[in-house]
């Protein structure tokens, strides 16, 4: 039984999959559909599609993208984030191809929507995204206004735990960089009430092992570094015991006797 998951992340901006650097610069990579197909074939434990320009433009979720992804017949659980405004959006996202949702700006701007979302799609399907930096504590970064908010507190996490199943801790400053996720964000995280997913500059095996050793992390979210080589996912998984992360999955070999 695997304690943690390896989650492949696709960041989308302007309809294109991009490599994102600290929420400031974006380099185009290609069609999100191609990346999703690769991650599905390589056997990640979940796929996270983060559309980063929908909320700011108040466009709602990208249902067209979801439908295109659904038409690929992905067999891996799909998490979608981007533009979700309320319970109706969350339900529409789930019905059109996603299996879980990632919500971000709602946490700070419309937290009153959280109960309705939970009551509609279930707490297990909702993940909260928390872009943070470490400065005398773990501080929340509000990306629309690009301001640093309050320190993330235990009280805050306790309130969120009624509506979310996990928190995605994003080291936004180190996003896109090599081996740079600030582990203090986890070591000093104020509460262990919610399992944490981590994202932002997580590229090396030892880094991943260190994060899992904290005992707070249930998922390692890895973005563009998975696109540099074939079988990157399987390569990473081979470094972990099967009690920690699910064994690698090869679709083209005899190991897959169910294909």
């Amino acid at each position, binding site marked *: *039984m*695997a*304690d*943690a*998951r390896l989650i492949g992340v696709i960041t989308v901006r302007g309809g294109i999959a991009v490599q994102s650097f600290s929420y400031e610069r974006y380099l185009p990579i290609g069609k999100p559909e191609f990346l999703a197909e690769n991650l*599905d074939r390589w*056997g990640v*434990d979940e796929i996270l599609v983060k559309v980063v320009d929908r909320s700011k433009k108040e466009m709602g979720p990208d249902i067209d993208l*979801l*439908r295109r992804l*659904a*038409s690929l*017949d*992905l*067999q*891996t*659980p*799909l998490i979608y984030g981007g533009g979700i405004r309320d319970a109706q959006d969350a*339900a529409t996202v*789930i*019905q*059109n*191809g*996603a*299996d*879980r949702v990632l919500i971000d700006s709602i946490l700070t701007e419309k937290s009153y929507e959280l109960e309705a979302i*939970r*009551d*509609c*799609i*279930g*707490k*297990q*399907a909702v993940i909260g995204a928390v872009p943070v930096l470490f400065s005398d504590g773990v501080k929340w970064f509000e990306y629309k206004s690009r301001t640093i908010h309050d320190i993330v507190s235990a009280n805050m996490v306790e309130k969120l735990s009624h509506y979310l*199943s*996990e928190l995605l801790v994003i080291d936004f400053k180190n996003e896109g960089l090599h081996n740079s996720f600030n582990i203090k964000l986890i070591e000093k995280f104020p509460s262990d009430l919610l*399992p944490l997913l981590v994202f932002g500059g997580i590229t090396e095996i030892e880094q991943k092992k260190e994060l899992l050793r904290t005992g707070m992390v*249930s998922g390692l979210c890895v973005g563009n570094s998975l696109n540099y080589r074939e079988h990157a996912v399987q390569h990473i998984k081979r470094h972990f015991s099967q009690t920690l992360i*699910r064994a690698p*999955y090869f*679709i083209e070999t005899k190991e*897959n006797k*169910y*294909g």
Partner: protein
Amino acid sequence: MKKINFGIVNYGAGNIASVSGCLSRLGHTVTIVESAEELKGTNFLILPGVGAFPTAIKFIKVNKLAQHLVARVKLGTPIIGICLGMHLMATKSFELGNNDGLNLIPGRVEPHDNGSTQIGWRPLVFRRPSEIFSTFEAQEFYFNNSYRFVTENKYIFATVGNSGGNVAAVKNGTALGLQFHPEKSQNIGTAFLSRAIESLDSG
């Protein structure tokens, strides 16, 4: 495998596209069911996952689907409930309140002991010896649930490995409930669903 026309119940949430895609991949056709009228012509029913019990059961009852679903199953129409769909088959659920289910598989739905959510890939342990499903013993499937199904041993088809006996699958006649998501458990999930459909369809 013969082509079956599945009725996937739409209760206002549910990962319908994922389930529909999986069934199409297996060569079947799908009808999305929102009313009793739309049940006609379907040979096999699916209650999909992803949602919350009170909202889903309210939708089914308000649209007068509940009694028709139960009647069809009593007449022998096979039905598979996935995750929340499995919970809807219970007698009662304590998710966000106290609500009656469809009572297709006697049991109740309650939170996990520590209020936690089970997320990730877990192995199955089959309670009943089965040639059809033996190849899936100890294989890992994707789970994502905050609530669990509690029932008598006679209805338990499989449990979650290393979990202290949490229910992974329940069965009563032609009704099969799966706590995990076969439609999102990659090749092994698709193979399992295919086997389950064949098994239920052949009676």
